[in-house]
Every structure is written in C-alpha cells, then in structure tokens.
C-alpha cells in the first residue's frame, strides 16, 4: 500500500478546485503541525499562527506539488521554513515581545488579542477532550487498544501491526476502526455538548 495514497487523493481534488478536500488535510495534520512548530516557538498561540500561515502557503503552492514526496513531508518543510522565518523576523522586530512574554500572560498575542485556544472555555474543552479520549482508550478491550496505540503512537503500518499482533491485516483494520468508533462515540458527546467547532468547518 502506498504510504500517501489517501492524502494524494485529497491533494488531487484540491488541485482540481475542491477546497473542501483541503479542509480534510488541515483537519488531519493541524495538531501535528502545531506540535512541530512548537519546537521553534514555545508559545502555543504563536505556534498556531505559524501553522495557519504554513497551511495557507501550502494551499497556494499546491499547484506545484507533483507528489514526488509524501504530502506531509512537503507540508513539514513548509512549516519548518515558516517557523524559522517567523523566529528571525520576531528577533528583528523592535517590539520587545520576548522580554515581556516571561512576565505577562502568554495568552495574548502581539496585538494583545486573546487566542481562542487560550480562552478559559478553550482550555477546559481541550482538557475535557483529553480526559474523555484517555478514559475511552482505557475502557477498550486489550486487542483494540494495542492496535490503535501501535498505529497512532508508534506509527506502524497495518502490515507491521498484523505481524506484531500475529493476525491478518484485515483484522488490524477492523480493530483500529472499532477502537476509533468506541472512542469517537464518547468524544462526539463532548464536541456536541461543547463549542462544536469541528462542525463549523463543514
């Protein structure tokens, strides 16, 4: 199985003018990208800004993406360069942002606006999401939990998981799907009862 076949399907749709397919790519990689950018900037709000900028740059550069490398590899490079440029320009900026940051609330950006993710509601929701998912994972049967953890934490392919768990690839696919479904049932309640931001994207 090609390592990037699903992403490539979405990329081709974006290249043909389907913006909705790009939403799916952003939804899939936004957390990874923010985490990546946070190696360069400590402030989560700034990392989100840089990740946003990287996604927009990627969208604009997508006509030149030929699929020679995996989409995430390509996106990764854009994000790294965006983060490095942001750090350089911030260091050159006359605004004493870094100096102030240690003494002030990090929830404010350079214009003094509070980021959505840093609002009390956002923080509570994030904590609730995290605890809900963790509780759901703990409640999973052993084989489902092992399969989803090997996939998400270790990044193993279905074939590698099948070898590790001594079962067919089809069983691995089924186990991962059932694990996700079980967690998602609990998670959906949080999203629907919370801010419901994920649905806003549709």
């Amino acid at each position, binding site marked *: 199985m090609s390592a990037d076949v699903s992403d490539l399907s979405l990329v081709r749709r974006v290249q043909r003018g389907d913006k909705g397919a790009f939403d799916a790519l952003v939804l899939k990689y936004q957390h990874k990208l923010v985490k990546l950018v946070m190696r360069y900037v400590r402030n989560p709000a700034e990392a989100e800004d840089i*990740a946003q900028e990287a996604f927009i740059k990627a969208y604009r550069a997508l006509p030149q993406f030929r699929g020679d490398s995996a989409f995430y590899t390509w996106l990764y490079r854009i994000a790294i360069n965006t983060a490095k440029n942001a750090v350089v320009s911030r260091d050159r900026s006359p605004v004493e942002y870094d100096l102030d940051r240690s003494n002030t609330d990090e929830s404010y950006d350079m214009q003094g606006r509070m980021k959505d993710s840093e609002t009390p509601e956002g923080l509570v929701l994030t904590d609730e999401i995290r605890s809900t998912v963790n509780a759901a994972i703990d409640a999973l049967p052993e084989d489902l939990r092992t399969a989803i953890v090997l996939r998400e934490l270790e990044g193993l392919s279905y074939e590698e998981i099948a070898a590790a768990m001594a079962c067919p690839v089809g069983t691995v696919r089924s186990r991962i799907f059932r694990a996700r479904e079980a967690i998602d049932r609990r998670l959906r309640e949080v999203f629907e009862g919370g801010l419901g931001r*994920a649905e806003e994207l549709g």
Partner: protein
Amino acid sequence: MNNEELDSQLSAMFDNELPPGECELLARRLSRDPDIKARWGRYAVIGAVIRAERGVALEGIVAGRVSAALSSEPALSVDAAQPSGSRIPYRWWQPIAGVGLAAGVAAVSILWLRSQALPGGPGAVAPAFVVRTAALAAPAAQALQNAISPAPDSFVVPPVSQRSTMMVPATELADYVVAHSAFSWPVSRGNLLSALMVNEPGTSSTPARSEQPASGVQGNAIQNPK
C-alpha cells in the same frame, strides 16, 4: 454502502491504508459531507491525544482559521495543477515527427558510411592505423625473421609507403574485403566495392590475386607474396 462500512473505509483512509480506487470515491464524499469531515477531524483528535501532544488545541482552532482565510482565495484550477501522474495530452504530430527523425538519422548514416568508403576520406584513418601498428612491430618482426630464416617468403605489409596515407593498394584491400564479407549484406558490399574500384584508376579490371588474409595474430595484416 452502509454507514459502518463507510466509517471503516474512512478509518483506513485516515491511516493511508485504503486502496487507491476506494480513496477517490471517499475523498469526494469527505470533501463535501460535513458529518464525515467532522468524524475525520475527531479521528485526528484521537491520534493527538494518544501521542500526548501537549499544548495543542484539540478543538481544531487552526482548521477553522485556515478555512476562513482561504474562503476568499480563488479555487485552484486544473490548468494550474500538473500532477506527475497526470496523462500527457495526445499530440497527433508526435508519431510523424518520430518517423521523420528516424529517416533523417538513417540518411545521415548512409551518407557518412559512403564517405568512409572513399579512399583518402575519413576512412583512411583505419588503414593508417594498421600501417602504424605494422611499422611499430616491424623491428621486432624483422629480428625474428632473421633469426628464423634468412629469406622470408612473406612479410607484414606495408612497412612504409611514400604514396599516400592509404598505404594498402585498393585491389588488395578489395580482395581482403571480398574475403571477409561473404556473409555481409549484398547492397552494402556492392557499394563499398564499387567505390573502391572507381577510385583506383587502372585497377578495376585487375583479377583478384590468390592472397589469403592473414589469420591468428596477424588479423590486421595482409600477407603479400614476394
């Protein structure tokens, strides 16, 4: 397709483990159906929590902002995208151009071969090489001949000639070619021989001599009776 099968496909697609044919169909639904998209987003959240991505807003703040920012952007066009796997449009003139190119190469090759066959032309390099090789080997050969027999009845020819760079007489060369081209293509053999005969005055009617080309180590030399 029932919902469970669809969700199973979505999960496999999220992991890049869905066959390409199924991906195309599901990608279309994913980009249009808000419920499927929301589920897709929650799959990403589950992964982020398992990887303990601390400091990351799990509600998908970035996705909402990117979507809003791109709403004013123009959609990408087919012309702008040039995927590597895309089909190259058919051009009717390409086969004709290919045939024309091949014919041109063939014509140039024939002309070049004919010019090679003419004495004094570029083809004179090869006999000159034979002469030079023979000349270099001449002292050793002479010493060997003297040791073996005082009156040798054959020798490696030609050691030195003052006539031209084409040292081998055309008739001898023609005989050599005839002896070596018994199985070559008749047309090319005729062209080469006729070129040789025409360019050597007074030799075209000379009967072929009963020389046998040297064999073994003297593959490039011609034995000449004294």
